[in-house]
């Protein structure tokens, strides 16, 4: 079991696309994968099931007292399940603000589950929901788009991870990799790549996700790029990314157990 949080406080960098297609890629490597849609926009839920803001959802687990096992759905992808999100999650930050141990609610709910990978798709913010996802994760994967504004504000995520690490005693929480998205072979993108390579030495993944219209079409058709257009540039890249992530973050055999000692916090 390995839990990977897909996070970046910037929007539109390909977090959901990466969560959905990485999950499908890992499933094709014979891994059992659970996607947890922590984002109130619930785009991963739609992309994998065709459902829009289903109820009950993760909200009922985090804010209510519903058991997480009762909101696990089979998705359109073989060997991929999902805990769906819905629009009510957008208020969850406020509703959870005064609760004790608010950062741990997701980790606690996931306890004991037996999957090879848990992929946590997060909202473009660093609020309580993202903190829950980071606290529940073993590693963080950061998609960064190779576009003009991609380099602004990326330090904020690292700072938050460091703060959480200290605050919640998550000594092993770390950025496992940075994956470049929206890659186009032009000078600007290659220069941005060069900057990231220096900044994230050894952590910038080799796989670059190209800008590819099929990725958007696949979402529209409620399936991963690996089902919709496996031979497309996007499909090949995500298949490659899954192999790379599996190599960097191998799944352990035991059930999910994240910092049990901290649950009483």
């Amino acid at each position, binding site marked *: 079991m390995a839990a990977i949080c897909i996070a970046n406080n910037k929007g539109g960098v390909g977090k959901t696309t990466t969560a959905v297609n990485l999950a499908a890629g890992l499933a094709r490597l014979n891994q059992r994968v659970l996607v947890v849609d922590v984002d109130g926009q619930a785009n991963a839920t*739609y992309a*994998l*099931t*065709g*459902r*829009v*803001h*289903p*109820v009950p959802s993760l909200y009922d687990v985090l804010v209510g007292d519903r058991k997480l096992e009762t909101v696990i*759905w*089979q*998705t*359109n*992808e*073989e060997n991929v399940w999902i805990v769906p999100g819905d629009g009510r999650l957008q208020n969850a930050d406020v509703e959870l603000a005064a609760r004790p141990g608010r950062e741990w609610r997701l980790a606690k709910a996931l306890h004991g589950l037996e999957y090879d990978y848990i992929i946590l798709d997060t909202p473009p913010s660093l609020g309580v929901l993202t903190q829950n996802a980071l606290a529940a994760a073993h590693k963080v994967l950061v998609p960064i788009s190779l576009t003009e504004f991609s380099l602004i504000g990326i330090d904020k995520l690292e700072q938050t991870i460091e703060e959480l690490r200290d605050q919640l005693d998550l000594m092993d929480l770390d950025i496992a990799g940075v994956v470049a998205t929206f890659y186009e072979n032009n000078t600007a993108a290659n220069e941005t790549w060069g900057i990231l390579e220096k900044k994230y030495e050894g952590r910038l993944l080799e796989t670059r996700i190209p800008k590819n*219209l099929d990725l958007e*079409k*696949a979402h*529209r*058709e*409620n*399936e*991963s790029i690996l*089902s*919709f257009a496996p031979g497309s540039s996007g499909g090949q890249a995500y298949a490659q990314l899954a192999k790379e992530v599996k190599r960097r973050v191998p799944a352990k055999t035991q059930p999910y157990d994240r910092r049990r000692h901290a649950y009483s916090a």
Partner: protein
Amino acid sequence: MSQRRPSRTTGAVTPTAPNPAAAVTTTKGATTSARAAGRAARAGEVTQLTKQAAQRTAEPAVAAVLAPETLARTLRAVADELERDPDLARRVAAAIRDALTQGEAPLRAVVDEVAAPSEAADAETGVGKTSTARKARTFKPTLVTGTDPTLGTGVLDPFALRERLGADGLRQALRELRLGSLRAIIREHRLDPGGKLAGVNDAERLRGVILDATAR
């Protein structure tokens, strides 16, 4: 200006311009000169010929049977005549309008086909290489409401749905599903043991397979 640039105007005359040319060239052959085409138009034949063009549905698009430069020359000549002779322009416009409003699908098809450049022709001429906006669109955005929650969670069971909703109800339910959901139903209920549908991205065909399977 390329002869294949689609007209985006809404005026009655502009979109009709290709069709008189189509009529002229199919009557007099691809070698008809621009001047001859103009004379034919002036002689009042265009209206009649346009209607004839509408009936030639089996013929390929005008653009496909004419050399690009010939087509361009012809269209320019016809356009000149239409500008010079308002009466002729009015008559051509009226004929086209009548054909369209009376449901003469063949003529509409010709208009549409001429207006929308083919990808092959674009590749040949270099037109549209920098933009995909002008390619024929197969997707039209609609409000996304998702799968009806009353149908159930996860991958749907078409057999249970048919039992509950009947054949028409199932058909309606399947109509709302996108490729991924249809493919998942086929996979989970083993409706394609030979794996023949693995790479099929035709939603209508997948719906047909599911409906057939549940009807047995």
